[in-house]
Every structure is written in structure tokens, then in C-alpha cells.
């Protein structure tokens, strides 16, 4: 293995991991951008999405590609329900109250996962078409590592279009500025918030499926680390900014891989690296790489 192909292999590994973080971060940042709510249960919704897919593929006669659409939709409904139960009654409370409710929801889902699915890991059924290796000039790539960035970019484009060009998207943006004024303009706030949560959870589940296909080990607590990492990715990119979340995800994934690859002695600090990045960003550019700082109107 030459030095160049070694570096290219590391680069591929980094992009593959980064695109996963990016994919999960999209949903995270979208919910925040519109509702100004850090949905700490996002990682656990992600976990729920993977398990739903697992059961769908193994225990129903539905073909796997259809399950890959139905399961995220079901996860979206769970997200919608979660919003109704845990967030909606607190909509007029101080923001910190909702934040604590979100943390509670996260623990609830984790422990529900342990009760329902058991503590032992399960193997994600990866369709064969997504799981074979191709070799390009000495660099080995599993097809899935190629598919994930494509899915991420497609979702990024689709979502940007949705938010900037459609009427619902416009309503979402209006809502992100001011609930009351938006409702005075005839926007059905409850409906828009429901749609936002549905989409955010749908995206989490899509991220979960891609994660499961790459790392096919399912556990009830599997959402915790990816949830935190993608949260960091979203903050690094400028929380609320979808393109920023994608950039942050890639940056984080590449950084992690390069840290382990080039400084093997620091491998144990791999997770710490993400948090150090977060702290540095918060210290020097709190609005993130692509975020615009908003001035509060009095």
C-alpha cells in the first residue's frame, strides 16, 4: 500500500463516517432551526427507527426497500406523538423546561428500548445489494459507504428546496421567527410543528437505517453517541442551518478518522475530540461555521 492510497483510504473512511453524522445532524438542526428546541431525544428516535426497520425486514413479508420507507414514516409518527406528549403542553413554558422534558423523553425512550427489545444486541439485516466491496485503485470501498453520502446530499438538496420553495416550508420559516405573528397570518401552528417533528424523526430514522447498514449492531443505547456527535456537528455547522449541519458532520467524521489514523496514541481520546471541537467553536464562533447570529428584537 503506497502512501497515497493509504491516505485516500483514510479519506474515504472519514467521508463515510462524516456523512453518517451529517445525515443524523440534518434532522437535529431542522427541528432546532424551526422550533428553537434542542430535541435531545433525537438519538433515541434514531434508535427506534433502526429497530422498527429490523422488525419490519425480519418479521413481515414486506420487501426491504419498502420497509426502508415505511419504518421511517412510522418513526415520524412516534416523533409526532412525542411532541404532543412531552413538548406541546410546555410550549409556553421557559425554554429550559422543554429542554429538561427532552432529556426526560430521551431516557424514557432508552429504557423503553431496553424493556421492549432486550439488552442483547441484534444484527441488522443488511440487504446484499448494499453490502459488497468494490476496489478502486487499491482503495477498498463497501458500496454502502458510497450510498450514504449520496443519500445525505440528496436529502440536503430536497430539504433545502422544501424549506425555501414550498408553502409549508415558508410557514416553517415564519414560525421560526415568531409563533404569535405567524399564527396571526393564518398559519396553523400545531400542524406545522407536527410536520416539522414528523420530518425530523423521519430523517433520524433514515440516518438510523444507513447507520445500521454500515454498523449492523443494534442496541437500545445505540442512539446516545451518534446523537451527541450529530448534535455537535449541528452546532459546529451553525445550529439551525441545514447545509452547516452537513458540513459539520463531514468535518467531525474526517477529524475523528484522521486523529486515529495519524496520531494512534490519541485513539482513546477520539470521543473527547468531538467535544473539544464543540468547546472551541462555542468559545470562538458560537453561531457556528455557517450560522448567522440573530439579534434579539426587543
Amino acid at each position, binding site marked *: *500500500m503506497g502512501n497515497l492510497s*493509504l491516505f485516500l*483510504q*483514510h479519506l474515504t*473512511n472519514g467521508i*463515510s*463516517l462524516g456523512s453518517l453524522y451529517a445525515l443524523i445532524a440534518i434532522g437535529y438542526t431542522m427541528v432546532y432551526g424551526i422550533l428553537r428546541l434542542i430535541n435531545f431525544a433525537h438519538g433515541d428516535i434514531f434508535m427506534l427507527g433502526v429497530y422498527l426497520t429490523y422488525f419490519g425486514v425480519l418479521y413481515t413479508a414486506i420487501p426491504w426497500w419498502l420497509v426502508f420507507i415505511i419504518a421511517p414514516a412510522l418513526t415520524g409518527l412516534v416523533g409526532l406523538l412525542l411532541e404532543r406528549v412531552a413538548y406541546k403542553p410546555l410550549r409556553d413554558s421557559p425554554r429550559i423546561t422543554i429542554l429538561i422534558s427532552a432529556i426526560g423523553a430521551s431516557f424514557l425512550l432508552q429504557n423503553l428500548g*431496553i424493556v421492549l427489545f*432486550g*439488552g*442483547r*444486541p*441484534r*444484527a441488522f439485516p443488511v440487504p446484499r445489494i448494499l453490502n459488497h*466491496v468494490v*476496489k478502486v485503485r487499491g482503495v*477498498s*470501498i*463497501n458500496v454502502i459507504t458510497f450510498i450514504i453520502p449520496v443519500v445525505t446530499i440528496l436529502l440536503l438538496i430536497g430539504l433545502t428546496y422544501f424549506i425555501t420553495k414550498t408553502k409549508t416550508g415558508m410557514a416553517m420559516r415564519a414560525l421560526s421567527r415568531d409563533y404569535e405573528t405567524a399564527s396571526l397570518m393564518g398559519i396553523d401552528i400545531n400542524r406545522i410543528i407536527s410536520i416539522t417533528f414528523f420530518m425530523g424523526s423521519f430523517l433520524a430514522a433514515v440516518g438510523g437505517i444507513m447507520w445500521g447498514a454500515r*454498523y*449492523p*449492531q443494534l*442496541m*437500545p*443505547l445505540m442512539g446516545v*453517541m451518534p446523537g451527541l456527535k450529530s448534535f455537535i456537528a449541528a452546532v459546529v455547522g451553525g445550529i439551525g442551518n441545514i447545509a452547516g449541519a452537513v458540513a459539520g458532520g463531514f468535518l467531525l467524521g474526517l477529524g*475523528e*478518522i*484522521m*486523529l*486515529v*489514523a495519524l496520531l*494512534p496514541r490519541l*485513539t*482513546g481520546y*477520539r*470521543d473527547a475530540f468531538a467535544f473539544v471541537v464543540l468547546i472551541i467553536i462555542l468559545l470562538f464562533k458560537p453561531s457556528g461555521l455557517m450560522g448567522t447570529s440573530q439579534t434579539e428584537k426587543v
Partner: protein
Amino acid sequence: MKRIGLTLLVLVLACSSWMGLASAQTIKIGVFEPMTGPSAAGGEMTVEGIELANEVKPQVLGRDVEIIVVDNKSDKVEAANAVSRLIERDKVVAIIGSYGSSLSMAAGDIVNKAQIPAVGCSPTNPLVTLNNDYYFRVCFIDPFQGTVMANYAVNELGAKTAAVIQDVTQDYSVGLSKYFIDAFRRLTGDPNSIVEISAYNTGDQDFTAQLTNVKNKNPDVIFAPGNYGESALLIRQARDLGIDVPFLGGDTWEAPEFLSIGGEAVEGAVFSTHFTAEAPVTPESDRFLSLYREKFGKEANAFAALGYDAYMVILDVIEKVGSADPQAIRDGLAQVEGFVGATGIISLDENGDAVKSAVINRVEDGKFVYLTTVEPQ
């Protein structure tokens, strides 16, 4: 009014003395094992064996034996909490556990201070029992296991170089890697025969960076002891990266999850373990295997067998010393000699460790297949 009060008092006294009698009659044995988290499969398999043993032998000295299982969540802090709870709240006279050397070591100080004897089923790091008069185990230890695998790599596979990938958060993995490295260097006579030592943490899912570095060094064989889940993902990713040399590991790989998560990638993986249903070693093995088959409808694994043995050893000691006092049990455990268990003849040495043979298994067609048995020197 007075009379009613008196009657009540007598009733309460009668009740409490009856309850006191009842609790004096049951002997409580605590079990702390990982039932959730990255080691959940290991804990569950072990507890199956312990529960089976409890059903087979539910009484000793004419008293009922109750086992109290506490989940240590594969976490060192939780392991310490679990053991404290068993000792302080449940007043157990002896403790069984835990799968995972780090988890057992987290409990070591507590059982030592409380003077409650503990018997480990499968923690193989030497430090679990070293300098701890109250910790024993029914399995072999890693200096032996590491040597067995190094021997296999050099003599059976003809390996001249090896790479080691260890989980730095697991004492088990770090310890076993160290003994493998020492033995491999000694056997090849080449201090540079270990070409790469890589590290990862429990819970990591992505190992591509480490594996790419390992691939660049072209080892003949890779030794990667660690949790079954992480190891299965690691080997999968290695095959994706085009690494096709054999993978070797330790006893933690013996879990159905290693096969289901690893899929085709783990075919040919070789590891050492404590016991296999394919090669019963004592009459007790046969008995255990048929009992297990009856209860669970499948073949037993090494961890269930070790759980079964740990329970049986404790009950045997209680019977011999004629007392369920923790100190008496400890003194009895220190004397265990030639106990016929399902996993072999158990004699505990001065550290409280069993000296037993190791079994080598290989993954073939999605199953663990018995290769050979290695006797201790």
C-alpha cells in the same frame, strides 16, 4: 383497648420472629452480571447457567437457596453499586460474577472490605483475584489464554508477524493482548514480530482508521480480543478493507451475536474458550449438557457452564463446612481441590484461580466448531 394493643403486639412479634426464621432459613447468593450494555450476551448466558444450577440443586443444609440477580449494565461504576447493594441490602452470604474482568475488578475492593466471598465465572484477568483473599474464580487466567493463542498462531498458522488490536477500556483485552504479545515474541524469537498495536474503546463502532493502519503493515495474523459486538464489527470492516488474514481472539467471542453481527466476515475466526458442548470433559459435563438441553432446547455454551460450576462450587463448600457463614465459605473456597465441575476438574490455587485446560474453536458455516483442547503446562 389495652387488650387489643397487647394482642397486636404479640401478633407483630410473632410475625417478625416468623419472618426472621424464614430469612434465616434461606441462603441468599448474589449474582452481578451485565444484563444490558455491550456485554449483555455474556451476562445473560452466565445467568442461564446459574439459574439452571439453582433449579437442579435448590437446597443445601436443608435450607432453600435463593439467587438474587442484579444487572451491572456492563459498567464499572454500576458493578460496584450492584455488589454493594447485594451485600448491604440483600445480605447475601456469597457472590457470583462477573463476566468482564473490569467489572469484577470494580467489585474487588468492596467484597474484600465487606468480607463476603465472590466467585467469578469468566473474568480472566489475573488482577481480579490477586491480593484479594475474598475473590475466587472457576476459570483459567489470561497468561495461559494469551500463550495458547500465540502458540496457535505460530505453530498452527505459521505466522511470523502479528498485529494486535485491543480495547483499551477493558482490562481483559489489554491484559490478554499483553500476554499474547509476550508469548508471540518469545515463540518467534523476534522482538519486532508484533508489527502494530492498535487501540479502540468499548462502544466504538468505526474501526476503519485502525484497520487501514494495520493493513499497511501486512501482518500474517491479527489478534483482536474484545467484546463480541465490537469485534464482529471490526472483522467485518477489516474484510471490507480487503484484509484477508486470520483473526484470533479470546473467550468473549463465544456469543451468538458474534456470528449474527459478523456474518460471513467472521468465517474462519479462531478463539480460545473454556468449554465446548462438543468435547465434554467430566461426567458432570454430560449431566449439565443434557439438563441445559432440556431447559433451553439448545446446546450449552462455555459461560452457562461456568455459571453452573460457580454455583455448584459454592454449594459444595457450604455443604462441606456445614455453615452458610461468609467467612466459613471463604475458608472453604480456599481449600477447593478436585471438584468435579461441568467445565473440568476445579482446584483453586493460592490466588484463588482454577487451573484448567483451554478449548480452541473456529467459526465454520456460521457455527462454532471445536478444534482442539490445550492442557495447561
